[in-house]
């Protein structure tokens, strides 16, 4: 490829006349298209089917940075973390076959949690597709049911426009993952490069505002309600609507509960904040749900971890449902009034129509429940054990809510949701829908890269000893880029959440959840990856370790906190039970006393 073509292309990329467009190879078109799209970071891993693209990147030296991850699953989670922390689309680039299949878990995760990422996969040359060729996988087939949309680019002339469409689809409406599969011969053939200003997407439209008649109805229902409750999910954050939500709550004195992905949309130090609801939600919150006469769901999808027995959920409530995805309406719980549209726009429509109201009786009632089973309280461990909840509390003390908290999946994840008082939007990143162990570290890494592009918050990853090792290899990447990640591993030497279910529902038969005696030495594991490793084994060491960790700012620090295996997450609504059928710490103590 003569370099003069590349140089001349600079002047003509946004021109509309095809005659101005430089002729480039597919691989170069790809690199330039990402620049045009405004991508600032790509998480990728090379291989035979994308070697041409990697070569073009080396020659062009594009305006975006490439991060070489150590496992493609890590790459997809990093892109998710980046997207959730910044509100931008995350980008992944991997090779065909195993490279593509390694991204599947991350894509499925992004699909269930509505995270905008675009995953580019190399593919064998078009004439070899279907021949069981080396490193061939039917990537569009494999990812069809876990993507918002996917493409196989068969013609180099369609490459640039496909990239344009992919980002548009990922970003707009209910966000989600998009896969673009690019055969090697398409990367090698030539075409004029033109990056379209608008995506050409006939069958795709995005709801904006809700129907005014429905808005009026919703305002009426709010006015008539005596026990209203706002139930806010990740959609509120995706729509950048936390401020509007807060205004609505304060204007009409409506208490707010948030889902796992909704945490941070409403300051938890506010009097109207009820914290999170559902399986491990607070007692008073779930009681409020079960007794409310109106629930206003905003960007939430009535997931079964929220509702438990869906038919017994919020039996006395009429439901207003605000959602950008029409297929979410009345999917799990019947909506009595549906406001289909962008949460931000809908709340703006609703705000002027809602009158201030007095909900004192209702709030008093909720306070009574709060006193019955107070949140943020736990049994201080006997012996000299570190209570896992206290670690989260001290992380909160250290950061005062000015941090992006990223978690893995398990008990530690629930404790973060319960004990960290989230105060700002996009400050909680976790795998909720798919519940993917191994998500935390790479997602935190992606979020930390995101902090380089604007926001400047500490990024803290809280992980379990089981899940951490599922993507521990990404420590090398975080170290290589000098990311000042703070990683807390709550080491209970068990697959703790499974152990908890075995304790409560399987007569303490701890089938294959014990990770001793060969659980890794986490301090050495950190050091082997060029990170700092610290360890706390008793309560008085916790604060010191945290203070020490915050003095390191040129590489990741891993803090291992040794916690007892017997700790359980309470309250708990057993799977499929009604939301007011909660197991609390009290229940557990009584059970222990019986023995």
């Amino acid at each position, binding site marked *: 490829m003569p370099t003069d073509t590349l140089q001349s292309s600079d002047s003509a990329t946004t021109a509309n006349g095809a005659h101005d467009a430089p002729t480039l190879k597919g691989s170069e078109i790809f690199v330039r298209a990402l620049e045009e799209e405004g991508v600032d970071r790509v998480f990728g891993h090379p291989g035979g089917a994308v070697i041409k693209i990697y070569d073009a990147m080396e020659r062009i030296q594009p305006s975006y940075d490439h991060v070489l991850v150590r496992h493609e699953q890590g790459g997809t989670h990093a892109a998710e973390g980046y997207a959730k922390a910044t509100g931008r689309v995350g980008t992944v680039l991997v090779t065909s076959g195993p490279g593509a299949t390694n991204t599947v878990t991350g894509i499925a995760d992004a699909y269930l949690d509505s995270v905008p990422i675009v995953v580019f996969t190399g593919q064998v040359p078009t004439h070899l597709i279907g021949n069981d060729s080396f490193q061939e996988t039917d990537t569009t087939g494999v990812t069809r049911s876990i993507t918002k*949309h996917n493409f196989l680019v068969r013609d180099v002339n369609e490459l640039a426009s496909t990239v344009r469409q992919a980002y548009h689809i990922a970003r707009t409406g209910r966000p989600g993952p998009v896969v673009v599969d690019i055969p090697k011969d398409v990367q090698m053939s030539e075409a004029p490069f033109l990056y379209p200003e608008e995506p050409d997407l006939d069958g795709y439209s995005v709801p*904006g505002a809700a129907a005014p008649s429905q808005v009026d109805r919703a305002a009426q229902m709010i006015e008539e309600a005596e026990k209203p409750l706002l139930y806010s999910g990740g959609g509120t954050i995706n729509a950048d609507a936390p401020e509007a939500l807060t205004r609505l709550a304060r204007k009409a004195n409506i208490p707010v509960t948030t889902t796992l992905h909704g945490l941070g949309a409403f300051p938890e130090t506010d009097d109207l904040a009820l914290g999170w609801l559902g399986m491990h939600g607070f007692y008073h919150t779930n009681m409020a749900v079960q007794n409310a006469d109106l629930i206003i769901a905003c960007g939430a999808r009535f997931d079964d971890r929220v509702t438990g027995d869906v038919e017994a959920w919020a039996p006395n409530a009429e439901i207003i449902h605000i959602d950008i995805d029409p297929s979410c309406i009345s999917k799990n719980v019947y909506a009595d009034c549906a406001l289909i549209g962008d949460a931000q726009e809908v709340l703006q429509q609703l705000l002027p129509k809602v009158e201030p109201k007095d909900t004192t009786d209702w709030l008093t009632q909720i306070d009574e429940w709060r006193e019955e089973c107070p949140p943020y309280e736990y049994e201080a461990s006997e012996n000299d054990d570190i209570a896992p909840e206290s670690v989260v509390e001290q992380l909160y003390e250290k950061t005062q809510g000015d941090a992006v908290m990223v978690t893995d999946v398990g008990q530690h994840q629930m404790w973060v949701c319960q004990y960290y008082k989230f105060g700002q939007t996009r400050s909680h990143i976790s795998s909720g829908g798919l519940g993917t162990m191994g998500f935390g570290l790479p997602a935190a890494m992606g979020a930390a890269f995101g902090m380089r592009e604007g926001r400047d918050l500490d990024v803290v990853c809280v992980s379990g000893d089981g899940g951490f090792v599922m993507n521990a290899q990404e420590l090398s990447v975080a170290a290589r880029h000098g990311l000042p990640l703070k990683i807390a591993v709550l080491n209970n030497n068990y697959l703790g959440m499974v152990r908890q279910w075995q304790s409560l529902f399987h007569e303490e038969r701890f089938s294959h959840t014990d990770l001793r005696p060969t659980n890794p030495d986490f301090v050495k594991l950190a050091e082997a990856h060029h990170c700092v490793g610290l360890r706390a084994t008793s309560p008085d060491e916790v604060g010191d370790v945290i203070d020490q960790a915050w003095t390191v700012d040129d590489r990741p620090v891993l803090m291992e906190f040794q916690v007892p295996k017997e700790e359980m997450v309470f309250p708990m609504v057993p799977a499929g039970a009604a939301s007011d059928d909660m197991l609390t710490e009290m229940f557990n103590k009584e059970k222990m006393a019986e023995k």
Partner: protein
Amino acid sequence: MSDEAPLTRQQIRRKRKFGEPILPEEEDEAEQEHRHIIAVELENTIGALNRVTNLFSARGFNLESVAVGETEEPSVARLTLVTVGNDRIVAQITRQLDNLVNTYDVTDLTDAEHVERELCLLKVQYTSETRPEILDIKDIFRGRVVNVTPETMVLEVTGPNKKINAFVGMMEEHGIEEVARSGQVAMHRALEYEAPNPLASADAESTTNGSASDE
């Protein structure tokens, strides 16, 4: 009693679940299952077709038949599908279909004035004794003989689903060799048609791209 608030839908659902008696005024028509015929215009590619059928298996929707072919516009295919479900499920189906990036239009024709047709090819064995009766049945169903060999003939019948079922039923005693059915295709009669929203009582369709209006 009279000044008590009417039950919420969640309360009625709960009653139904626990087998409590449901008063007539609490009966929710939306919970009844019905057969629905839905027309989908989509991109004329295997990938697009695949996404549609995949949706049914991935989400556990019922799919009784599906028929697909090119339209007057070669880049657009039309797919007609038949499914069974209550209003909530059918709304899910149409909205999930609508959400697919390469579907252009999804219309539930069930409650519209529409025509419905299915084509059936049926191969049957005959003897000189059974031949007249087979031809009689064919005539009653306004069918045609499209191929004959000394032992078998292939009959063609078109009509609504029920008529085809009846025809196949009638031929059974003559020893059917093979049946090929096209699945339903359907079209509404009017020039333009806006399908009613099955969840109309709960929601009005939102508008797209920011401009809000009712209807």
